[in-house]
């Protein structure tokens, strides 16, 4: 009996439930206050800019040379993409892009396709870090940035692509090529409010000889490798060569450049590139393997075999793991060319 009563009290005591309701009310009121009063939570990055403006970025900047294509129907994706591609020297119109980025049934364009389409034109699509400082750095460097905005209010969702071409922080405005407006001035606060709901998504699509100023090496080289799938080989070669100048000790950039040189039949150039990489990364298994392949093609199988044995010796390191099978295959090929079986 006593046990039963205690349990009942613990579960449905009127005093407890009143207290609980009160606590919910207080929590709700606090949340509402935080939402109304704390603009920091609505536009956190704009608030952060008040504390610290990104180092090395001018307070105002605008690239007036960026062209403008008024959007037709729901085709802000093709229009925004044409804006950045034409600014980067590609000759096309938004209509040329409709077939590669517009989805009729969705009446819009997907982010992944906005990234994929420029690759066919030999442009490197690079998604920016989801931060104001990355966006401002690119715009200040003269690189127009495609952004995804949600222009809806409350529960309404209204996805839209626009191109940021400039900003004036003292005036508190960003300048966009947007919809049918050539130069739309949007306050930083409003812009962040619309930009936030898409996860601060932004991208640039630049010619291979121009690396985004905010790019990191790994992300940029992945972007170049993605372009290499569908672009003209010369564009990838130029992109890797440029990346190697910006990040001289990056092994991936060296391998990328050497692979393009190898594909072109420029074996001596590929060897030079890989030797330089090997001097900086003596245990890099892909460098050893690819250099061995190049040397073998040049008829220097003895040197190739020595490098492959060195690669298999280095395989104890965890980074070698994925490439061991490739090294064994290359070794078998070299041995075959030497007329040996072991």
């Amino acid at each position, binding site marked *: 009996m006593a046990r039963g009563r205690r349990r009942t009290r613990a579960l449905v005591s009127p005093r407890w439930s009143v207290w609980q309701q009160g606590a919910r009310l207080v929590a709700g009121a606090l949340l509402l206050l935080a939402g109304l009063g704390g603009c920091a939570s609505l536009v956190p990055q704009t608030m952060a800019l008040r504390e610290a403006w990104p180092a090395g970025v001018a307070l105002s900047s605008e690239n007036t040379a960026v062209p403008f294509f008024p959007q037709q129907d729901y085709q802000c994706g093709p229009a925004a993409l044409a804006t950045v591609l034409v600014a980067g020297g590609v000759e096309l119109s938004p209509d040329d892009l409709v077939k590669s980025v517009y989805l009729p049934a969705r009446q819009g364009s997907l982010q992944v396709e906005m990234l994929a389409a420029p690759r066919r034109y030999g442009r490197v699509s690079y998604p920016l870090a989801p931060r104001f400082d990355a966006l401002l750095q690119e715009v200040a460097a003269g690189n127009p940035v495609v952004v995804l905005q949600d222009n809806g209010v409350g529960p309404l969702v209204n996805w839209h692509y626009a191109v940021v071409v400039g900003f004036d922080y003292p005036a508190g405005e960003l300048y966009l090529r947007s919809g049918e407006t050539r130069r739309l001035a949007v306050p930083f606060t*409003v812009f962040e*409010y619309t930009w936030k709901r898409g996860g601060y998504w932004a991208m640039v699509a630049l010619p291979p000889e121009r690396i985004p100023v905010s790019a990191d090496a*790994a992300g940029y080289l992945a972007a170049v490798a993605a372009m290499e799938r569908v672009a003209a080989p010369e564009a990838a070669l130029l992109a890797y060569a440029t990346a190697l100048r910006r990040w001289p000790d990056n092994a991936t950039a060296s391998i*990328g450049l050497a692979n393009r040189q190898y594909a072109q039949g420029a074996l001596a150039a590929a060897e030079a590139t890989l030797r330089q990489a090997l001097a900086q990364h003596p245990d890099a298994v*892909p460098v050893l393997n690819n250099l061995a392949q190049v040397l073998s093609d040049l008829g220097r199988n003895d040197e190739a075999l020595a490098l492959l044995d060195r690669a298999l010796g280095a395989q104890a390191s965890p980074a070698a793991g994925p490439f061991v099978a490739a090294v064994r*295959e*290359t070794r078998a090929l070299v041995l075959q060319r030497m007329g040996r079986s072991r």
Partner: protein
Amino acid sequence: MNSAFKKMMCRFLAVALITLPFQTGQASMISTDQVSSAATVQANRSLVLNHLNRAQTVNEFQALGLDAQQARDRVAAMTDEEVGNLAGQINAVPAGGDGLVALILVVFFIWYFAFRR
């Protein structure tokens, strides 16, 4: 005895299937794609998965009104990772289309008179 042998055989085959790599049959250069994605697990099983994802995405594109050739071309321009993220999500991800300035004006006026930066 016979059953024990079968069990052992099964275990051996299961382990062999998992651990033995697929033969690509091409002794050559390690590709840049392989090197730059080596940090994110580049397992052989992802080859199979990737083919399935691409086929699925092409189908989904066709269902959304693209012709077969366009759908294939568009999927071909995506990386394995991009296709992996998109497959099965094509109707859930944002599709930017509208440029209704009327809606932005509502927000604009709310904020314009409050503060701009």
